[in-house]
């Protein structure tokens, strides 16, 4: 059974057709590389999955169950997590505090409830270990490399045992070595059976880590196939419109 199925999803904002009859599916433990030029509809698609927008027509289902998201929290309850492009981390707090931000575990001491830092540190240390990242829970995010920041943002999503993790340009603006680190993080998510939707402009990243590739152009899905059956040249052609569809 597919993890996530889009059937005939369209979205229009007034007269603007942002998505036009998009149907695609993702399996558990699969990485989908989502590509397209600016304004092709990638972010609209992502925002529909994340619960920011509701589709104008069409249906979304997770694990065979039809779902309707009214707010982002509805999507989170169904196991959809989002890693934002700017990572949405508080620089002045530690890695552990960021992982647990808004979900801090509490302990009771009589009538007083206080934050359980010990638990936060052990749980996040464990998450970083699973991700094979050299990030220490007590380290301030401000002092971290781009790859470590990604690890913190991803560890955040793992806290709620997600089914689908969406990543928006995770490899933009970081060094080559850190890109490799982030791609490894994505593979670890995949190995845990999590479906990953990776949005990127960087062709090598998509081809090295994705199982399937989807290309949007002007709101239409022009390609949805296994990475092995495609090539960077073809995808470039699809994005720009030199190739009509594949």
């Amino acid at each position: 059974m597919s993890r996530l199925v889009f059937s005939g999803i369209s979205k229009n904002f007034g007269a603007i057709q942002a998505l036009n009859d998009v149907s695609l599916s993702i399996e558990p433990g699969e990485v989908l590389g989502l590509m397209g030029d600016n304004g092709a509809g990638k972010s609209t698609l992502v925002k529909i999955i994340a619960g920011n927008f509701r589709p104008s027509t069409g249906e979304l289902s997770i694990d065979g169950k039809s779902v309707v998201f009214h707010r982002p929290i509805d999507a989170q309850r169904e196991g959809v997590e989002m890693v934002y492009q700017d990572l949405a981390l508080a620089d002045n707090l530690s890695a552990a505090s960021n992982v647990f931000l808004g979900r801090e575990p509490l302990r009771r001491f009589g009538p007083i409830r206080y934050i359980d830092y010990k638990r936060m540190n052990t749980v996040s240390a464990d998450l970083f270990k699973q991700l094979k990242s050299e990030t220490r829970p007590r380290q301030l995010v401000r002092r971290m490399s781009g790859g470590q920041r990604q690890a913190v943002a991803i560890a955040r999503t793992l806290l709620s045992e997600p089914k689908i993790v969406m990543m928006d340009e995770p490899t933009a603006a970081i060094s080559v070595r850190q890109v490799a680190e982030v791609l490894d993080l994505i593979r670890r998510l995949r190995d845990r059976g999590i479906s990953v939707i990776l949005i990127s402009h960087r062709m090598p990243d998509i081809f090295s880590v994705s199982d399937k590739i989807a290309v949007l152009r002007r709101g239409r899905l022009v390609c949805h196939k296994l990475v092995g059956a495609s090539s960077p040249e073809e995808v470039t052609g699809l994005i720009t419109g030199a190739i009509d569809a594949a």
Partner: protein
Amino acid sequence: MTTLDEIINNSRHDSWFARLKNLQVFWVFIAAVLACLALSLMTDAFTSERNLFNVARNFAFVAIIAIGMTAVIASGGIDLSVGSNVVLSAMVISVAMSGGMGFWLSAGLALGAALLVGLLNGILIAYAGMPAFVVTLGSLSAARSLAMVLSDNKMIWEFGPDHGRLLWIGGGSTFGLPHPLYVLCVLTVVMSLVFRWTRWGQHLFAIGGNENAAVLAGIPVRRLKVSIYMFSAMTAGLAGILMAGWLGSVTTNLGQGMELTVIAAAVIGGANLAGGEGNALGAVVGALLIEVIRNSLILLGISTFWQGMFIGTFIIVAVAFDRFRNMRR
């Protein structure tokens, strides 16, 4: 840049002395101690019991509000209305008490008035999305005006049946220490714990660090902001009540320009005006340093007109210090 460098860097930071050295509180405290030492050598008056008592009491008022200000600044905001909130609270309690009301009820009213100003500040900033600077600048003007209306701009020095109690609470002492100092100590300890160990404290710093991240993490940012401005207003109201008791009379120019001293104390103590940093103890030490400097000017016979120059220089030096530290990072 590289991870190796960072590991080396961090292991160096981990030694407790190195960490202490990086703490602004530490340096400010050293500065305050040095100033005290210099003063006790240069003048006989500084170490006199009477003078130390005065210093301890005077700095307590600023320090109490500076703790509230630290919460606001750490969350990325600013509260310019605290000075006016002091006079509003002091005026409410004195008008109520001179009208025959008891101390506790009047104190409740005074705090209520201050909290109301904080609530209004918070709602306009958090829900209407207006800049904190502008909103609190407006309430700075409005609250003082309200205090003038309330008192008809007259001095009040009769506090009704509980007169003695008010004077004792604000101006009295127990075991040789002035009462405001006790209030300050309790507030410092409680707020140090709250900042570090509660969700409210953590989320406050998260908002100051990256408000967008806090919103995305599902933190009720707006409600939290309102509570932060109310907390700041409450510290100002508390100081107003204590100051009314200390002075034994309340005029409408009480607390005028106090917001600058308070902000200076918080910033000198390590609160980052860009948000995300600050601590209660730092605010207290910052206030102490300012009071020691002020006191020294008087004792050394230097015109008090120089006071503003010193405080202003201190703010700039504190911010420059912070800049410098961040550059090295």
